[in-house]
């Protein structure tokens, strides 16, 4: 198959770019999971360490006083990325992956970024017992994936899904009359800003089906049709295909920060609805591009134009490498579809 060889090369590049964050966040981790020769991965991202902040700013929902697009939407177009950590660990974002603790994990808990779970106050997802057992089983096998279902699906190029896409790599927001478009490293979300109905509940999707509207500075999005497959990260936290998510993207009118605040409701997995808060900042031409938060390229322009960054093609192909031993990949050969 012609695709296999080159694809594996591409996959190594992608793998490199994702080990970057792990190294950047936990430079002393004893278990950097794969080859360290990561393009753009060695350096801590630009932005004064904000890519690894312990703080979650408070941004209140309210009026939007910043720039607007011609159709009236707050103008939040551009490049964004989270400010805390990647998907190593959902509730202890700077604590490291299961079985691969960061050095920071030995510090008192309040010296690391708080849990992404902002409600309940204990920072834990209120799982029902059976669901908690499944999550813990995944975490216990993450570094020893003796079965296929212990491989974090993003390691296979699956879409990051909700909410993991917001703390994976940086991403771009583009806006249009009637739509907000989210371009992630792995996957794309089209948020419809209209009253059209959701897809039939029988259709389950990695990124769900999104309907949204603006309330002042806040983009409110109802996400249904979730398939629950993407997981929230290497700790195996998850929702089921019965979950609905209400997202609130609360933008600071200065255009520099926003908080992603999402409430997860799923009576088959959780004992009550709970809320995640994920802080993000904007990246612009004033920032240095890097392989994690800001994977932009310098545009080639006629002489005399101001610096312009643009998003290169993002295609993750056949990236089958799990972490830890006992690799269980996906066969490279054969047709996946019969259509």
């Amino acid at each position: 198959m012609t695709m296999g060889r080159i694809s594996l090369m591409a996959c190594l590049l992608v793998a490199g770019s994702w080990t970057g964050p792990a190294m950047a966040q936990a430079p002393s981790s004893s278990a950097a999971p794969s080859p360290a020769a990561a393009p753009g991965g060695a350096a801590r991202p630009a932005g004064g360490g904000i890519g690894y902040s312990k703080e979650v700013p408070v941004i209140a929902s309210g009026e939007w006083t910043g720039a607007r697009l011609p159709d009236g939407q707050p103008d939040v177009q551009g490049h964004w990325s989270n400010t805390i950590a990647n998907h190593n660990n959902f509730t202890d974002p700077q604590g490291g992956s299961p079985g691969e603790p960061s050095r920071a994990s030995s510090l008192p808990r309040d010296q690391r970024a708080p849990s992404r779970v902002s409600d309940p106050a204990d920072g834990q997802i209120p799982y029902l017992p059976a669901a908690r057992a499944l999550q813990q089983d995944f975490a216990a096998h993450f570094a020893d994936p003796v079965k296929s279902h212990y491989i974090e699906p993003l390691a296979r190029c699956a879409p990051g899904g909700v909410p993991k896409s917001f703390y994976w790599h940086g991403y771009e927001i583009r806006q249009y009359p009637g739509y907000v478009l989210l371009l992630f490293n792995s996957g794309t979300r089209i948020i419809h800003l209209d009253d059209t109905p959701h897809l039939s509940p029988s259709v389950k999707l990695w990124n769900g089906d999104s309907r949204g509207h603006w309330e002042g500075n806040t983009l409110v999005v109802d996400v249904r049709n979730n398939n629950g497959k993407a997981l929230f990260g290497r700790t195996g936290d998850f929702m089921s295909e019965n979950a609905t998510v209400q997202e609130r993207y609360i933008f600071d009118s200065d255009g520099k920060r926003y908080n992603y605040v999402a409430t997860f409701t799923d009576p088959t997995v959780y004992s009550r609805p709970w809320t995640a808060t994920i802080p993000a900042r904007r990246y612009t031409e004033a920032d240095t591009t890097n392989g994690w938060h800001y994977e932009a390229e310098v545009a080639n322009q006629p002489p005399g134009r101001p610096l312009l960054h643009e998003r290169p093609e993002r295609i993750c192909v056949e990236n089958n490498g799990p972490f830890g031993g006992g690799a269980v990949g996906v066969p490279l050969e054969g047709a996946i579809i019969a259509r």
Partner: protein
Amino acid sequence: MAGPVRQALAAAALAFAALNAAPLLAQASAEIPRTQSGKPDFSGIWQTLSEADYDLEPHAGRRDAPPGPGVVDGGRIPYLPEALAQRQKYFETREKDDPRLKCWVLGVPRSVYYPAPFQIFQRDRDLTLVHQLGHQVRTIHTNETLHPVELEEPYYLGDSRGHWEGDTLVVDVANFNEETWLDRSGNYHSDELHVVERWSFVDKDTISYQATVEDPKVFSAPWTVNVLLNRRRDKNFQLIEDYCFTLPYDQYYPHKEGE
């Protein structure tokens, strides 16, 4: 009605049509959707009705393809002799070697005439093409930027730089890798592929799409594909993600037993 009268009426109608042809065209051109800045607005969900993806060249029906009159100007693709032999090999192995079967990315121009919908999102600075199949997002830059001087890796979808010639969007696409094909029948290209696309409205719900393809490693001369793209107008139609490359492993999640 008497014969002579009818003939006179017919002649008058013809004369009227001739006199009014230009204004009618102008009217049609005014009726296409336009952005605030006055450019044709290609926003919407589009899909070909053509058989182009089955085989770009004229072909009778066969087990894996409905018949098609061909969409290549002049009928045949002008292969170099060795490349033609390779294409014939690919034709024989198409049911396992067509890269579309991986569900990742189809390339350019194939992603445009593949029989699945794609959505165009348009701003003055660019057009974003989100294709339903796989994970294919192409940005056509219309901000006078140029192809990159060098790329870390060539692109599956190429690097697209567009400009307007009247109401036609002309897009120069370069910097390809060689991982995609041009259709299901084994028509292929190398990493020297260069495509020039011309996008223009026929009417508000139909785009004329033309792609001129050159590749000195594979073809003896440039050649051109013409297809129409039709606006999807089914009630409440929307793109539905089709990350079919996940099918070999999606049964393992969330937290399900598997091999």
